[in-house]
């Protein structure tokens, strides 16, 4: 199952492991980039984020767990498969807690590793897709005027046009026009659709002045 658009990054300070892994993954039809240290990965990484990171736990300087932490800080969401020379239970627990896909002890079973990588790639694809959708949704929302955003907030909180008009001190007719525009711009098929989008966007109905 060659996946030419998928890039796997390997970070391991041992050249034997690096080359063996690289050959193994390439033989499975994956594109591979190798790095000798966490710093090198952070500095040299291309514009395209890899889909999966195969990461050695014991690295000189910044350790594997440190890198995982650092990536989380800069919101670099790449699924990680950890490797370690000797099974270290506390470390593996910490890594899995921080969202690692798998934690493998050297020498590892090739199939186990490939399975973990495929799972990671799958997870990555999902993340990317979600991100893209979210971005699209946010773009659409950004394209709304301030007034339209206001109207949308009122609409998704279930208010009637008349109520919205009262709330915003505008005519009902104007509310209708705004509402139509909001539906069109948000590509919403129905009110329910719009409500789902609002949820995804994290929009909550503003507290009405009457209630405060």
């Amino acid at each position, binding site marked *: 199952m060659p996946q030419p658009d998928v890039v796997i990054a390997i970070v391991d300070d*041992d050249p*034997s*492991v690096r*080359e*063996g*892994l690289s*050959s*193994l993954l*390439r*033989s*499975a039809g994956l594109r591979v980039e190798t790095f000798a240290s966490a710093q090198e990965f952070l500095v040299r990484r291309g514009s395209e984020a890899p889909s999966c990171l195969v990461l050695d736990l*014991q690295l*000189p300087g910044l350790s594997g767990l440190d890198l995982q932490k650092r990536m989380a800080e800069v919101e670099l969401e790449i699924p990680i498969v950890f*490797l370690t*020379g*000797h099974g270290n239970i506390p470390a593996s627990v910490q890594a899995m807690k921080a969202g690692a896909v798998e934690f493998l002890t*050297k*020498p*590892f079973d*090739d199939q186990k590793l490939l399975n973990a990588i495929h799972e990671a790639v799958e997870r990555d694809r999902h993340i990317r897709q979600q991100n893209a959708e979210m971005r699209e949704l946010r773009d659409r929302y950004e394209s709304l005027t301030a007034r339209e955003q206001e109207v949308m907030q009122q609409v998704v909180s279930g208010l009637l046009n008349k109520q919205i008009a009262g709330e915003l001190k505008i005519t009902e007719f104007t509310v209708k026009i705004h509402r139509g525009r909001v539906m069109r711009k948000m590509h919403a098929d129905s009110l329910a659709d719009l409500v789902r989008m609002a949820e995804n966007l994290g929009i909550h109905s503003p507290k009405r002045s009457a209630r405060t």
Partner: protein
Amino acid sequence: MPQPNLHVIAIVDDDPSACAGPQPLVLRLNQRRTLIAAALCSFLYLLLAAAPVRALDPNKRLTQYVHTSWRIQDGSLPAGMFSITQTSDGFLWFSGIAQGVYRFDGVRFLPWVPPTKMGFHIYSVFADHVGGLWALGDHEIAHVKDGAVIAYFDLEGLGGRVGISQDPDGSLWITRASNRVADAPLCHITDRAAKCFGKSDGIPISPADAVLPDGEGGFWVGGQTALVHWRAGVSQVYPIEGLKSNAGDVGITSLVRGADGSLWVGIAAAGPGLGLGQFRNGAFRPFVTAEFDGTKVAVYDMIVDGDGSLWVSSVGKGIFRIRGNVVEHYGRADGLSSDTVTALFEDKERIVWATTTNGIDSFRDPRITTFSALEGLGKDAVTGVLASKDGTIWIANSGSLDHIVNASVSSIRSENGLPGHQVASLLEDRVGNLWVGVDDGLYLFKDGRFRRLPEPDHQPLGLVVGVAEDIDGDIWAECAGRTRKLVRIRDFRVVEEFVSSQVPPGHTLAPDPQGGIWIGTLKGDLVRFRQGGLENFSLQTKGDPVSRQIIVNADGSVLAASDDGLVGLRQGKVQRMTTKNGLPCDSVISFTEDNAKQWWLYTGCGVVELANSEIQRWWANPEAVVQNHVYDVLDGARPQGRPSFNSAALSLDGRIWFASGFVLQMVEPSRLSQKAASAQAYVESVVVDHKEFRATDNLKLSRHPRDLQIDYTSPSFLIPQRVRFRYRLDPYDRDWHDAGTRRQAFYTDLPPGKYSFRVIASNSDGVWNETAAKLNFSVAPAYYQTNWFRALCVALFLALLWGAYLLRVRRLQRDFKKLRDVIDTIPTIVFEVGPRGSGAVANRRWLEYTGSPLRQYGRFSPEDQAWRDSTCIHPNDIDVYVKCWERAIATGQPFELETRVRRADGEYRWFLARHVPLHNMHGKILKWFGTFTDIEDRKRAEEALRRSEAYLADAHMLAHTGAWASDSTTAPLYWSEEVFRIFGFDPQCGLPAREEPLRRIYPEDFDKFKQAFDRAIHGKLDSQVEFRILWPDGTLKHIQAIAHPVLNANGEVVEVVGTTVDITERKRAEEELHEGETRFRTFVDHAGDALFVYDLEQRTVVDVNRSACESLGYTREELIGKSPLGFHMDSYKVEMDSIVGRAAAGETVFDTHWHRRKDGSTFPVEVHASMVSYRGGRFLLMVARNITDRLRADEQRDKLRQLEADLAHINRVSMLGELTASIAHEVNQPLSGVVSNGSACLRWLAGDRPNLEEAREAAQRIVRDGKRAAEVVTRVRALTKRTAGSREKLDLNVIIGEVIAIVGDEAKKNSVTIRTQFADGIFPVLGDRVQLQQVVLNLVMNGIEAMSSVEGREREMMIAAGNTDPDQVQVTVQDSGAGLDQDKMSKIFDPFYTTKAHGMGMGLSISRSIVQAHGGRLWAAANQGPGTSFHFTLPRHEAESNAAA
């Protein structure tokens, strides 16, 4: 209304040249005839003057003249002037009322000092035609000529307005304008007297303001109320209606004859019937035209200029110029210094001058005439000019098409038909049609109508930037429309279009006489376009590339204007005429050739005139310097901009027109040929040391003038800035100085003498007037500059010199005589001889000694045989002497020689001869001086003494005996050399003081010495003593001294004499013998080993030492004489015999035995036996050492070593235990590589198309990683082995590297970074690989552990290995851990001391013993920063270092 105190001067200037013509009219018989002649002259002059010789061009507008103004506020002059005249020498004179008279040379207004007796006020000045100047004051009249007053007298009533008219004989007619004058207003003035005419002579009015000869012997006289014509005592009065009530005030101020003969009358009042008018048919008629009303002008003064134009100066209305019916006005708004103009004057250069209440103004005709908006052009934006065949000049302007016909300028604007705004290129075709480019179209202009050229596709052509007609009658137009294109027009329609891809975009077009057209392109190239073919010629001009004008000559050569000179193109070759060829500047805007074959270039710095012959010369030689004439800004050129279209034109009348981009400029070559009047220079004054003198001839200047300034000038008013001067001062200057425009010459420190200063001037056209102005002057000499003074000084100096010389000679003679006496009385022979030995002279002593004068012995020269043979010098010495003498002459070095010289009686005596040269300053020998000193007696005495002393000294030295003498107090009187040597004093320093030798006597022996000495003194006996002396350096000497008192006749001791003998050697020999014996015995007794001496013959013990007795338990006596077998174990008898046998053979024997004590116990001994011979006998010397203790110690050491090895092993194994995780990791890494690669290899091989290349690479990696794992395992195994301690040659860098490979993971686990610093060329060491690795491992592990608790800084370990001096290798393991305090530091190497929780405390202890077993050292030291450093050194591998050595 004019003010009563204003003084108006009306002047009629009659040119005397008119009367000096071919018909001389000398009519001086009576006054009447004079008047007739004057009138005739005036008339003739007026006729002649009217001819246009060279005058202000009447066709020009006043604004086209160059107007110059000197205003009071500019500081040019002190106040307003009222009168102008020009004397025959060319100077202009101005006079004011209270400001005096000023002379003007074009640059400077010079105050004129009026002649003596003249009052302060001079109202008018008038220059007559015979070179004189009249000055008229309040009531005085002075006539001045060449600086001298030739006439002076009083005349009442002048102090008002004065009208002046001159007779041909130089006498004047003037009017008296003062109201005080009763009834004689007209006066005739000669140098002798004034005669006034009034009522009695038929003049009914008084006073009068103006006078004008009527040309027939009579006069017109203008009064306050009427005009009077007076002739031959009869007058006709013409009252002027408007002046009826004017009595007492100024009336008619000016009368002139117009060009047509009419009489112009100016009245100083405006109003109906007043102002400016003409007198016609007996009545005054105001001059009124459609545009001008003469009644509104109050007239001050009038003149008629050389062209016949009437100039009128007015009160408050400026200047009017009237010619025919055309009246022009010029006032303050135009730049006139004031609107109230008081007088007018036209000078010889036809410049019109005007004085105003605020200054002086002049108007001159520039050579280049400018037409601008002032003259009626639509705007000052002239971009093109065309001269049409009908004489019309067409001007392309912005917003109008202007044209000039017969000097009148008019415009066609959009309101009268111009079909647009910007007029572009113009062309008149061969049939006389005018093509005009307007905005984006091309039009045919005919009969006042514009017809637009039909455009193909109704697309406007665009701005027509260039248009030309070729020889076929086709019209070509370059159009800068939306697309730039060239079009061909025929029959009033566009027949062809060429876009820029076909023909390069151009600007200027010109027809080729051979057909086709030339295009000046936007890139600056020239392109010939003929029958569809293009030829491109690159001009490569600097600056603006576009050529504004191109002319193609009949011979095919092309001329083009450019920013980089005039460009010529002939036969494909480009040449340029630039400043290098003599042009005033490089930028040529346009050019044309006139009918007289002159070329006219319009350049950035003016109009340049160039003969065609010069152009031809330039064509032939592009480097030629061309003759040209430049008309620049001062001539009216105004090349400020760049015309966009037609830039130059030649009109039918021969005038040349240039469009400047702003204005239109015109040159009229026929008028240019008239040059300015020649300039005459004048010397004005001489300033000597800031004192000014008038420039009179033969001026005598004071003695020694420091600064001399000569002021000169030349009156010239056309362009004074261009007047140049040259001067020379004879005989001071060799050549003419070019002073440029400077008007002063400066000289400093002129020597006395007669001088002649000459100066010449050039006029504004650069024509030099070779007639020089001269000034002769002389400078008187000061007394010290006179010749007799100089001669006196020389004579005095010579006399002083002679006196000094005489004095000197006398003193020298006296000194010489004294010296001669001294020399002659010297008891030594002194001589002097030439550089090569000739000319010897000696003092009297020579004669006394040798008995004959020096001359007799020849030349006293080494070369002179006669002298050598004279036997003056002893024959045995003469050769040496001559050799020395020759060498001295050759080298110039002095010499000294002992030689024998013959006395008069024939005996030879020894002399010391000395020869010394005398050098001159260049080192050459001038003379030799010499002396002969008699040393015969001295020589003999010396010889005798030397011999006796030598004998004595030898004797003393041989016997170590010194002789001495001293006085009774022991103070030395004489010491022989040996005494000095014995006491250790230096004979060179002389006898020591009394105390010094006494102090050297050994203190214990001093009394002994004293007693012996006293015995000699007091007992008067010989005494002998032995004592010691101690030198300061500690040398001790034994002395034996004998003293003998010397008695005088009275039996008293005078001195003590004696000898001193050094007996040190003898004493030392005695003592050493005794001491040697004792010491030897002691040594032997105290030796730790037992000593036995056997007699080999007797086989008994001869001697033993104390150790031997003590070890065996016998006494010395018991042992001596005993056989050694008594204490040797019996079983060793054979062995004993063998020792004896081997030693007897001369061998030194080592062996171990058992000895038995007296009590029967035995102990092991090591025996060392050798044979010695002594006094004929043979003895065996046997040394026996008890070795019981040493054997026991060896056993214990072996046990300890085994224990240490075990401990080391335990330590290694336990350390490896600690490292298990790390080792596992080290093995795991390559293993996981093996697994990955193996899996990959399988995958590469699987499938339909196995990738063999990748599979092979994976397999190779498997092999490599497998080996790597095996290496780790091997290394670990080696460490766990119990090693036999084999030594091999090792490289410490490799050892350390292997250890790091094992602990790598452990370090990583503890976040420790290991850095290494391995020196190159590290010495090899000899050692046990495993043990040394153990040491390094220990140190590294300790370091890692020491850093495991470190937080907040780098955990860094540094391992360094390098050579240290000498022949040592040092390894340092440095951690950055917590460090060790002093207390711990001292204990860490102790066994079982540990700072770790699980440590055995053996690591460092073991490490230290390993290092020490290798001959090295291990120690710890605290770092500068945190942490501890462990160092160990090992010696360099011996074989290696030996080989290296």
